[in-house]
C-alpha cells in the first residue's frame, strides 16, 4: 500500500488493534455525517406510495427513483419564488461583500497611510464589541429598510473576519512587487487589480465561499425584517414548511395541506445542493491552509 511508503523509518509498525480502531472511528464518523444526507436524498427521490409504505424516511433503494416530489415542489409558486429570492440575495450580496472587502483589506494592508489606524480599529474592534440585536433592529427599521432585501444584505455585508483574512494575505505579498509596479507608474487600483488580485485567487475564493454561504443560509435577518411573506427566501420556507410542517402561506390557490415527506425532503435537498456544488471547488484551498496561514500571519 502507498501508505506504507509514507511511514518514516523510525516509526513503529502500526498495531492491528490500533489500525482497527482507527478504521472503525473513520467509518462511524463518515456514516454519522453522510447517512442522514443519503436517507434524505433517497426519500426526496421516492414516490409518495413508497414513503407511505415505509412510514418515514426511505433507507433501502430498490423502489425506483422518481422526480415526482421535485415536480410537485416546483409547481408551488411559493417555493420557486423563494428559491429565486435566495439565489438573488446570495448573488448580489456576495458580489457586494467580496468587492467591498477586497478594496477595504487592500487599503488596510498599507500601514502608515493616511487614516490607516482609524480604518483598522473600526474593523478590528468588531471582534470584541457588538451592537446587539435590539439597536440593530431599531436602526434598520428606522432607516426604512423593512420589507426590503437590503435589510438582509447590508447588516451582514462586511465580515471583520473575512477582511482580516484578506488583509493578512495581502500583507504577505513581497513588498518589492508593489514598489516596482509603482515605479512603473501604476496607481493603487491598478496594483490591486493586476498584481495583488491574481496572486490572491485562493484566499479570495475562500472568502467568497464564506460570504456566499452566509447569505444563502441567512434565516434570521429575513425573519426579522421581511413582513411580506411573498418576499421570503428559501430558509424561511424551509423552516415553515419542513421544520414546523405548517401549510405554506399564500399557497391558498393550491392545496393548502401540509406537504408530504418526499416534498419536504426535496426542499431540504434544494437548500443543500448549492453548497454541495460550490464546495469541491473551494475546499482544496482549506487544505492548502489558506485561512490558517492568513490568520496566523
Amino acid at each position, binding site marked *: 500500500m502507498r501508505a506504507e511508503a509514507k511511514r518514516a523509518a523510525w516509526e513503529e509498525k502500526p498495531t492491528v488493534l490500533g489500525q482497527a480502531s482507527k478504521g472503525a472511528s473513520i467509518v462511524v464518523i463518515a456514516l454519522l455525517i453522510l447517512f442522514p444526507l443519503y436517507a434524505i436524498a433517497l426519500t426526496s427521490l421516492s414516490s409518495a406510495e413508497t414513503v407511505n409504505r415505509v412510514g418515514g424516511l426511505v433507507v433501502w433503494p430498490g423502489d425506483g427513483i422518481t422526480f415526482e416530489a421535485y415536480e410537485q415542489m416546483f409547481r408551488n409558486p411559493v417555493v420557486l419564488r423563494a428559491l429565486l429570492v435566495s439565489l438573488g440575495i446570495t448573488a448580489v450580496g456576495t458580489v457586494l461583500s467580496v468587492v467591498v472587502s477586497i*478594496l477595504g483589506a487592500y487599503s488596510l494592508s498599507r500601514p502608515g497611510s493616511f487614516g490607516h489606524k482609524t480604518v483598522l480599529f473600526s474593523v478590528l474592534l468588531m471582534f470584541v464589541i457588538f451592537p446587539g440585536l435590539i439597536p440593530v433592529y431599531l436602526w434598520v427599521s428606522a432607516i426604512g429598510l423593512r420589507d426590503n432585501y437590503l435589510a438582509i444584505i447590508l447588516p451582514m455585508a462586511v465580515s471583520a473576519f473575512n477582511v482580516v483574512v484578506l488583509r493578512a494575505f495581502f500583507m504577505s505579498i513581497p513588498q518589492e512587487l508593489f514598489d516596482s509596479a509603482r515605479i512603473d507608474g501604476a496607481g493603487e487600483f491598478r496594483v490591486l487589480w493586476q498584481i495583488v488580485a491574481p496572486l490572491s485567487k485562493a484566499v479570495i475564493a475562500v472568502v467568497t465561499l464564506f460570504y456566499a454561504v452566509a447569505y444563502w443560509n441567512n434565516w434570521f435577518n429575513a425573519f426579522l425584517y421581511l413582513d411580506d411573506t411573498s418576499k421570503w427566501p428559501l*430558509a424561511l420556507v424551509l423552516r415553515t414548511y419542513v421544520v414546523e410542517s405548517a401549510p405554506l402561506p399564500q399557497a391558498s390557490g393550491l392545496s393548502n395541506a401540509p406537504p408530504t415527506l418526499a416534498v419536504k425532503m426535496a426542499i431540504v435537498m434544494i437548500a443543500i445542493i448549492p453548497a454541495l456544488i460550490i464546495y*469541491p471547488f473551494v475546499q482544496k484551498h482549506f487544505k492548502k491552509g489558506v485561512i490558517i496561514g492568513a490568520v496566523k500571519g
Partner: protein
Amino acid sequence: MTAPTIQSPASPKAAGDAPKRAVKAKAHWRTRLRRDWPLLLMAAPMMLLVWGFWWIPVLGNVVAFQDYKPYTGGIFGSRLVGFTHFQMLFSDPEFMRALVNTLAITAFQLVFYFPVPIMLALLMHSLASARLRSMLQSVVYLPYFFSWVLVIAIFQQMLGGAGLLSQVLRANGFEGVDWMTDPDTFILLVTSQAIWKEAGFGAIIFLAALAAIDPNQYEAAAVDGAGRWRRLWHITLPGIRPVIVLLLILRLGDALNVGFEQFFLQRSAVGSQASEVFDTFVYYSGIRTGDFDYGAAAGLFKGVVGLVLILAANKAAHMLGERGVYSKS
C-alpha cells in the same frame, strides 16, 4: 464560530514589516493625504457599511438607559432612566433562567464539545494515507456549510417523534423516542448538533498546528526510545498547546454566547424552560413584547460581560506564559 482566531497588528510578521513601511509615514499629513487618497477611496465603501450597520447601532445601545418610546419619543426624545432596566433584569426570574441555562450549556460544551475537534485532528493527522485523510476532511468539513435551519430539519428527521430512529424502534416493537421535544435531554441534543455541524471544521486549526510541529522532534524522541504514546504526550500535545489555549480563551470570552438560531428555532418545540438562553431572551423580551429598552439592557449586559471576560482570559493566558489572542506592542 465563524471567527476562530484573530491576531492583532502586533503579530510578528506585521511587526517585522512595520519599521520598513513606517518610514514613509513620517511625511506631513497633507503629503500623505495627497499620496494616499486612492487608499481612502478604497476603504470608503467598507467604512460606510461598518459605521452604518455596526458602530451606529453600537451607539444606539443608549436606549438601554432610556424609557424608550418608539413612536412618541424615539431615541432623541425618550427620557433617561439610568440603570433601572439593569436592576430589573436581576430580579427577573426569566432573565436569571436564561443566564443559568446559558452558563450550563457553555460549561457542558466546554467538557463535551471542546475536545472533539482536537481528537478529530489527531485522528486525521495520524492517517498515513494522504488520500484517505483528504477524503475524511472533505466529509467532516461539509456540515459547517449547512444552516441551522437545515441542521435542525435533518436532526428532526433522524431523532424526532416521526424520525428514522423512532421508525426503526417501532418496527422492532419498541417505543418511539422524540428527543427533539424533550426538555430533559435538550442540552445533549444541542451539543450533538453543534458537534455534528461544527466540530469537523473546528479541527482545521488544530490540523495546521499539528502540521507545524517539526518532524525531527519525533524522530529524535523515537531514537531515544519514546513510544508513540510518549511522543503524543511529550511532543504532539505541547506542540498544539498554544492553539488550544487560544481557543479556550476565545470560548471563555464567549461564555455568554451559545448561539442564537439553534435555540430560537427549537424553543417552541422544547419550551422556554430548557431552551431560553441569553440571545433568545433578548429577542423575546425586546422585540416580541416590544420592550426595546429592556431587551437592549439585557443585550448590553451580555456585551459588556463578554468584553470583560475576553480581556480577563487574555490577561490570564499572558500570566501563564502563553501568547494569548493579542498583546500590546
